[in-house]
Structures are given as structure tokens and as C-alpha cells.
């Protein structure tokens, strides 16, 4: 028994090592700069020795201004190293950053000592890039955690993983992926298919949480646990148990019970007080405050959120909210806010606004925070001090994972 376990652990270790070795050590940003330098060497080879150059630089791509500046600096510094220092006057080298579906391109037109020339190099589009904090002085603060081409349902940061690198567990549409952070870039460390061959709704939602070396995963009709590192086995409870929907509900900040239709994107709520399922269907739910004043808000299919008392008496209909809502605790105001998206579909940029419930009314608190695409999911963290947001950026067509917190501002 012990021997077979050792063999299993050895096999897993080899698998992890192979996966690690398969991950390129050079970051994408390095590749872009390397490509720019290589192109500069090609240009230099075609120029008369020591000829001064004036560079015109245009960014027609979706690369950021900072990334474009990196490219420009790489070209100019490489040219200078090769004896072609910057000069004043009419541009003699025209650089344009462009893109096609597959690549970013650096296209250069320049005059060699014989004729006009064109040089082009390309770098594949980014797969997963880094992150950085987006400082904000407004009430809701957002921190970009991950930006990647593939879909994200949810994500769970892990402080230390394996070789002590920070890690990120990402629930994607068909798999669970573990990214380790090295050199400011998330690199894919491990991926595993989801432990179910169910057909999910087209706008599938899923929630994960990392706790004590365990990953919890919940999707409509499915609840699973597995060890984070060397345990490749899932332990799942299928749809017969309400655990999965409870987990989903809890992750919006509501500890009530709902029942999801597996092939739809909505649920019925269990009205525990009168022991009945709701007649209406809902997309999301969030609880407010505690004790006897506990209230719950459910976002309905009709585009309106409904505020209920603990005993499921309707207190107020709230219009103007999107379908994603999540509760959050803070040290500001009443100490409990609800974050809600705007109405709209997946074709328009979205925003998240914080609200407090005062005398049965939803009151806006602070400014909304804008995103470059629809917010696909909002999930309340386990300690309810933050909310995870997944955004589909309409410009880059990437998925972005954010951590939202409430700051009291000044």
C-alpha cells in the first residue's frame, strides 16, 4: 500500500516537474522587447554606418501606451548601441505597432542606403499577463489580478504554493488552472479538467475558494473539494445535494438556500420561514446586516431587485440594477454594502456601484467604478471583506479578474 502511494507521489512529482519545465521562463514583455531589438539590428544592418536616425512611432494596436513605449525604447536603444544615435529633423524611420488576429506586429519603413525598405516582426498575442494595482481614491477600489484570453468563472488567490511562490487558482469554463507568479507574470503551473461532464448553461457560473490547502468548487448541481497541491482527486457531491447551491449563494454574501436549474442561469429561493420555494426566479442574492434586522436582496429575471425582510416580506422593489450583486462588509458607513452592476448586456461596458439600504431604500454610496466590458460575475470573499469580479474586456476580448474592496476615502 505504502509502495503504491510512493509511486503515485513520484509520478505526480514528475508530472509537476514536466509541467514546470514546459512553461517558458521568458515573459511576454521580454519577447516583445526582444522582437523590437532584433528588428532594430536588422534595420541597422541596412543603414550606412553611424548614420543618425529620427524615429517616428505610432501605436495603432491595442497595446497600452506603456507597452508601446517599451518597444520604442528597445528600438532606439538598440540602434544607438549599434552606432545610430537619434537625430533631429524629418523622421527617417517610421515605426508602427499594429495587430492582426494572431499577433502584434512591429512594422518599420525606412530608407536604406539603396532603397526604401520594409521590415516586419510579430509577437504572438499575450496568453496571460500581469497585473498590477490600480490605485483609486474612490470608495470602491479595484485590483487587477489576472488578464487572460480564456474565460474565467472565478479565481482564488493562494498566498504560498509549492515552492513558496504566490499562486492563483482559476476556475475556467472547462478546467481548473493553477498559476504561479514568477517575474511579475502568472505562469500556468497545473491544469485539470473539471470533475464533471455536465452540460452547463451558456453563461455558466462557478465559484471556488481556497481554504487550508483545500479547493472548494461549486457550480449549479455540483460541489467538490480537492487538495491544492499533490492531490489530483476530486471529492464531489452531485446535484442531489443542496450543498452546491448553498455554496454559490453563500459566495454572493447570502447564506440562504437556493435551487438552481442545471441548464438555466437562475434559481428558486427557499423561503425557510414559510417552508416554500419562491414562485419567482432569481439570478443572484445578497444578505444585509445581521440579527433581527437581517434582510436579503434578490436580483430577479425582470431586471428588478427585490428587498425582503428576514421573514420574506417584500419591502421594496429596486430598479436600475444589473443582475450581479454581492454583499461586502467594510469599516465605512453602516459597515455593510451591496455592490451591484448596471443594467445592460454583454456588448456594453459595465460599472459597479455600492449601495446601502436605508429605511428600505437603496441609497447610492460613493462613485461607481467603471470597467471596459460587462461584469460577468461578482463573488463575495469568505470573510466578506472583498468581492471578486470577472470582467470581459470588450476592447481586448480578454477576461479580467479583479478584487474589489471598499475604502472609506477622504
Amino acid at each position, binding site marked *: 500500500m505504502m509502495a503504491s502511494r510512493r509511486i503515485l507521489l513520484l509520478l505526480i512529482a514528475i508530472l509537476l516537474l514536466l509541467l514546470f519545465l514546459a512553461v517558458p521562463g521568458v515573459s511576454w514583455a521580454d519577447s516583445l522587447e526582444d522582437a523590437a531589438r532584433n528588428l532594430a539590428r536588422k534595420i541597422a544592418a541596412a543603414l550606412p554606418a553611424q548614420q543618425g536616425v529620427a524615429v517616428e512611432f505610432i501605436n495603432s494596436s491595442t497595446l497600452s501606451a506603456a507597452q508601446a513605449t517599451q518597444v520604442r525604447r528597445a528600438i532606439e536603444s538598440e540602434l544607438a548601441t549599434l552606432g545610430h544615435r537619434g537625430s533631429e529633423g524629418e523622421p527617417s524611420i517610421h515605426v508602427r505597432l*499594429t*495587430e*492582426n*488576429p*494572431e*499577433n502584434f*506586429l512591429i*512594422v518599420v*519603413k525606412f530608407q536604406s542606403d539603396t532603397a526604401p525598405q*520594409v*521590415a*516586419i516582426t*510579430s509577437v504572438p*498575442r499575450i496568453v496571460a499577463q500581469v497585473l498590477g494595482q490600480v490605485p483609486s481614491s474612490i470608495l470602491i477600489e479595484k485590483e487587477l489580478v489576472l488578464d487572460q*484570453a480564456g474565460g474565467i468563472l472565478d479565481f482564488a488567490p493562494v498566498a504560498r504554493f509549492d515552492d513558496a511562490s504566490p499562486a492563483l487558482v482559476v476556475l475556467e469554463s*472547462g478546467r481548473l488552472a493553477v498559476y504561479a507568479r514568477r517575474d511579475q507574470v502568472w505562469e500556468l503551473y497545473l491544469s485539470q479538467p473539471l470533475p464533471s*461532464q455536465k*452540460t*452547463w*448553461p*451558456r*453563461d*455558466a457560473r462557478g465559484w471556488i475558494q481556497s481554504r487550508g490547502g483545500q479547493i472548494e468548487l461549486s457550480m449549479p*448541481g455540483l460541489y467538490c473539494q480537492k487538495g491544492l497541491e499533490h492531490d489530483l482527486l476530486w471529492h464531489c457531491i452531485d*446535484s442531489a445535494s443542496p450543498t452546491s447551491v448553498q455554496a454559490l449563494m453563500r459566495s454572493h454574501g447570502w447564506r440562504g438556500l437556493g*435551487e*438552481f*436549474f*442545471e*441548464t*438555466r*442561469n*437562475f434559481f428558486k429561493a427557499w423561503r425557510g420561514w414559510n417552508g416554500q420555494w419562491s414562485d419567482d*426566479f432569481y*439570478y443572484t442574492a445578497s444578505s444585509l446586516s445581521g440579527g433581527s434586522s437581517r434582510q436579503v436582496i434578490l436580483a430577479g*429575471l425582470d*431586471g*428588478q431587485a427585490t428587498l425582503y425582510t428576514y421573514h420574506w416580506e417584500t419591502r421594496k422593489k*429596486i*430598479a*436600475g*440594477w*444589473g*443582475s*450581479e450583486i454581492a454583499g461586502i462588509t467594510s469599516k465605512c458607513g453602516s459597515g455593510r454594502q451591496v455592490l451591484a*452592476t448596471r*443594467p*445592460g*448586456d*454583454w*456588448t456594453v461596458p*459595465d460599472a459597479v456601484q455600492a*449601495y446601502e439600504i436605508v429605511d428600505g*431604500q*437603496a*441609497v*447610492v454610496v460613493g462613485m461607481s467604478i467603471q470597467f471596459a466590458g*460587462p*461584469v460577468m460575475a461578482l463573488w463575495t470573499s469568505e470573510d466578506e471583506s472583498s468581492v471578486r469580479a470577472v470582467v470581459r474586456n470588450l476592447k481586448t*476580448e480578454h477576461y479580467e479578474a479583479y478584487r474589489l474592496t471598499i475604502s472609506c476615502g477622504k
Partner: protein
Amino acid sequence: MVAANAAATTRPHYGGTLRIELRASVASLDPREIPGDRVQAAAATKIYALVYDRLVTLDEHGQPAAALATSWEYDGAFKRWQLRLRPNVKFHDGAPLVPEVVAEWWNAWHGPDQTASASGDTVTIQAGKAVPELLMELAEGPRFVFHVGSDGVVSGTGPFRVTEWQTGRRLTLAANEDYWGGRPFLDGVSIELGVSSAQQMIDFELGQADLVELEPAQVRRATQGGRKVWSSSPVEILALVIDAKSSAVSDARVRQALGQVIDRAAIANVLLQRQGEPAGSLLPQWLSGYAFLFETAANVEQARKTVSDLSPAPGPITLAYDGTDALARTVAERVALNARDAGLTVQTVVAGASGITDVRLVRLRLGSVDAARALEALVKAMGEQLTLPAGAAGDPEQLYAAERGVLESGRVIPLAYVTDTVGLGPQVRNWLPLRWGEWRLPDVWLDPSTGESRTSSSSPSGTPR
């Protein structure tokens, strides 16, 4: 306090029927019978994609992504491909998607140089010669997987199943409840075929159609009344193709002058109502990334000088266009008008009406979202030769050199790129097509709070769980 504005939600609603009108009269739902005509083929491909799936699809960046095949492997020579099939997928007639069926489908399409065999949950394709582009071939064109039942009916695995088919006139589809990609939000789709542009516009304005095709001249009118207009990236090219046997344009300087004198900006802005772009190259900028390197601005002075230097003066040039395409006619007339500024005489004729033509105005659709494949297909369709060097597919610099080589002959003169443009009714939500015009109707939903009450919340029968 909360603003009480229109009720709408970010998460989609289920229910409702999307009403579409198309100009084409697609004659068959059998994906083996893809029409040869440009307009018919484009419409047929859109319809087939609702009923059938491909083994491989394209993601937003035009890269192969899993569809009925979830993963694949190939040998170093690109001759042996193994595709693992998605489990638990069924055709609309209830038959399971199994490797044996896919192998049979493949072998019916291909000769002995590419044979498929089934094993376990995989299909292995063995080719006589290297097929490095197999995934793109599977993801584009008419490679829809189907299964012929014992009754002879062709079934797909797509997001919608056929409920009514009046050949060439009307198609009604219902959501495939068991679709592997998740049940579509719409309950159904109805497609009226063979509807003229004018009639589509009327139905659109009266709220009797949710999705119609728009001509450039209709765009401004369509945006009135809360309706939306969507345009793809350019997916067609208008170009002049010189007849190799023509004596009127055998002199390269005449062809050069004709290319220089055309006001492409006016064609794009006025005739295409900005639903297109001036073209100096064959591939549009979004696909190649380098199209801006090709000149599109007119140089009337230079063209006039070139023509005036010719001795003897060039004779009249006959320009043929497709008589069924109103846009082609107006563009041909504009070319003739511009040519006069350089001292060239261009006579426009309907293609086929005259036996002798010097130049043809062609309107061609991009055959691929892969730049190299698209360039090869365009050049071939124009009757020209293009041999891409090995490695050109992944090297924009080589592709640029190859394209410049084709255009420097002057036998092809690009004029403008044209987009696909559709009008969308106020209820239509989640209109998220791919930039090259491929629709994604399973994601579309209808907002019941907007417009007339045609939708109802669709819920599965029985108790949840």
C-alpha cells in the same frame, strides 16, 4: 437614490423567437450542398452553423478552439492527426456522436489520400501528404459534422434543430435543449429566405423582423427608432482584375494610371456610406496588420502625365460588372468617371452581356481568417498565381512581400473593402458576432422589457434538480 430606469439585466433571459430575413434563397440544409455563389454560400454557412457543429471552431482571435473535438495531437510530419471527441453529444435524431460516425463522415468527404478511422474516443486522420493547416480547414468552410439517419434525413448536433423547412423560403428552428455548449437562450429562430433588401427594410421598420441584412445605402435610415446597426470588420474586397488577353490594358503604364486615378476614399465614404474602407492591398488591415503600407490615395496628376506620355493614346477600356449587384454597378460607374480625369476612356458593361472585356470588377469574400490562407484564396479567385514560400504563413514580412509581388504586376487593382452590415431590432441583446461576421446566435437573447411582448421566460419542465 436609485434611478428607476429601464428594466434590463446583464444575465440573459431565456425565451422568444428571433426573426431573421435574408436575401439568399438557400436551397438545401444539407451541408454537402454548399452553393457556389458568394451571397448564397455566406448565407448557407450562417444557417448550417445553427444546425451543425464543426469538429474545431475559431476563437475571437481566429485561432482553432475545441468544438466537437476537445483536443488533438499530430505527428511531426503533420500526416497523422488524432482528434478526441467530446463525450455525451447527440445528434438531433438521438444518435450518439461516436468516432465511427465521424470517421464515416470524413471518409465520405475525402478520397483515399485522407482516411479516417475510429478507436476508443478518438478519430485518427491519416493523410498521404502533410496537412499542417488541418485545424483551420476543419474550423472554416463547410466542414460541418452530420449524420444521415436510416430515413435519409441529415442530422446535426448544433444549438438549434429544424422544426420546419420550406425549401428556399422559410426555416424554423427550435433550441436544442441538450446542446453540449449550453442550451441557447432563444427558444427558437425563424428565417425568411429570398427577401429583397427593400422588403427587409420595410419589415425591419415595422418591427416584423429582428435581424435583417442592410445595404450601405440603408444604414442611416435603419438607425432611426432605437434600432441598432452592426458592421463586421471588412470581409469582402472590391477589385479590378485585368484580362490577361486584353490589348487595351496590356501596357503596364495604362494599368498603373488606372490604379492611380481611382478615388477610393469616395468609394468608401460615399458609395459604401462608410461601411467599408479604401483598399490598396488584398488583405485588410485587421487581418494582415500591414495593409497601411499600400497606397490608397489617388494621384490624378501622375496618372494624367503617364497617360499623356503614351503614344499612341490608349484606346477605350471595357469594364464588366455583376449586373445583379447594385453596389458593383455604382462602383464601376465611379471608376469610369475617375478614369476620365486621367484621359482614359472606360466603358461599363454587365458581365456576360459583351463577349470582350478588358477589366472585370470582382467582389470576393475572404475565405479564411488566416492571412496566408485568405491571400492564397483571393489570388486564386482572381486568376493570378501565388506561391508562398515555406514559412510565409507565420511570417508577416514574407506575406507582405508576396502580396506586394502580386500587386506590382498591376493585373489586380484593389478598390475597397466591404463589411457585412445588419440591422438589429430593439429587443435583441448579446449580439456578439465574431469580427469577421460569423454570428453567434446561441448567445443572443430577447429583452422582454423592450418593444412588443413576444417573449416569455422559458423554464425547464419539472422540478429543478
